[in-house]
């Protein structure tokens, strides 16, 4: 006869509450297979579209949850989802400011590449996501960060778009150039351009 004992409660539904603890995720990499070299993935996030940012954040968080080392290189339109939610305007001159007007920064304001309908598309997509228990890109990005995913912005994109380092969310690494990104890609087991 087998008796099974269980804790009375499930783990709190909102695991992210534990984020205030001093690095509760430290050592997660030890879950990864010890015999083989830890696998590494590089994602180039070039698009700031909602659906593609979703793909980026889903793959990054899942790879990190599977014990892989993940780096995301944010370039061109992909840079805007990294802007802090309280920053409405980026840019130093009128052209850069127009970019922020036409393309609102922040991961909570992404547009669909098709069927956007002035925001109706993303609104419906978020409702559908909620109905089906799908986490938003912003939530997935937070989890990815908690699991040790490196967020690396492209210096050239920042300069050209007029986005400064202090306008980016916490935890983003210093900006780098194409050479550094290529070095990461060359050493990675898989590279995705999204």
């Amino acid at each position, binding site marked *: 006869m087998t008796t099974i004992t269980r*804790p009375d409660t499930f783990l709190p539904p909102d*695991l992210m509450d534990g984020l205030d603890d001093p690095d509760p995720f430290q*050592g997660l990499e030890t*879950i990864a*297979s010890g015999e083989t070299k830890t696998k590494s993935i590089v994602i180039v996030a070039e698009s700031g579209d909602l659906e593609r940012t979703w793909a980026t954040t889903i793959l990054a968080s899942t790879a990190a*949850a*599977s014990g892989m080392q993940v780096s995301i290189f944010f370039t061109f339109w992909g840079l805007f989802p990294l802007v802090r939610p309280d920053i409405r305007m980026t840019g130093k001159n009128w052209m850069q400011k127009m970019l922020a007007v036409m393309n609102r920064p922040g991961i909570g304001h992404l547009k669909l590449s098709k069927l956007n309908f002035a925001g109706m598309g993303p609104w419906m997509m978020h409702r559908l996501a909620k109905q089906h*228990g799908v986490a938003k890109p912003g939530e997935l990005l937070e989890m990815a960060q908690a699991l040790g995913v490196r967020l690396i912005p492209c210096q050239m994109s920042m300069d050209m778009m007029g986005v400064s380092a202090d306008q980016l969310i916490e935890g983003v690494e210093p900006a780098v150039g194409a050479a550094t990104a290529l070095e990461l890609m060359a050493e990675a087991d898989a590279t995705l351009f999204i």
Partner: protein
Amino acid sequence: MTTETVAIAQRVDARGLSCPLPIVRTAIAIKTLKTGDLIEVLATDPGSTKDFTAWAKTTGNELVTSSVTDGVYRFLLRRK
């Protein structure tokens, strides 16, 4: 009759959640356990059977049992 006791150290309720939350939450939860500890995961995502099999293979954690009752998938995993 011999009595065997199986102690489950942690439970994760991922019912109603879609990919990749069942896996991501389990990965975070299993981190809090010791080697050999058991964790039970409940999910309703039909893709989770394959996902948990793949995840166990990738991470080296053991998928002890996997079952489905009335659309609820139940996974018992042992931390590596």
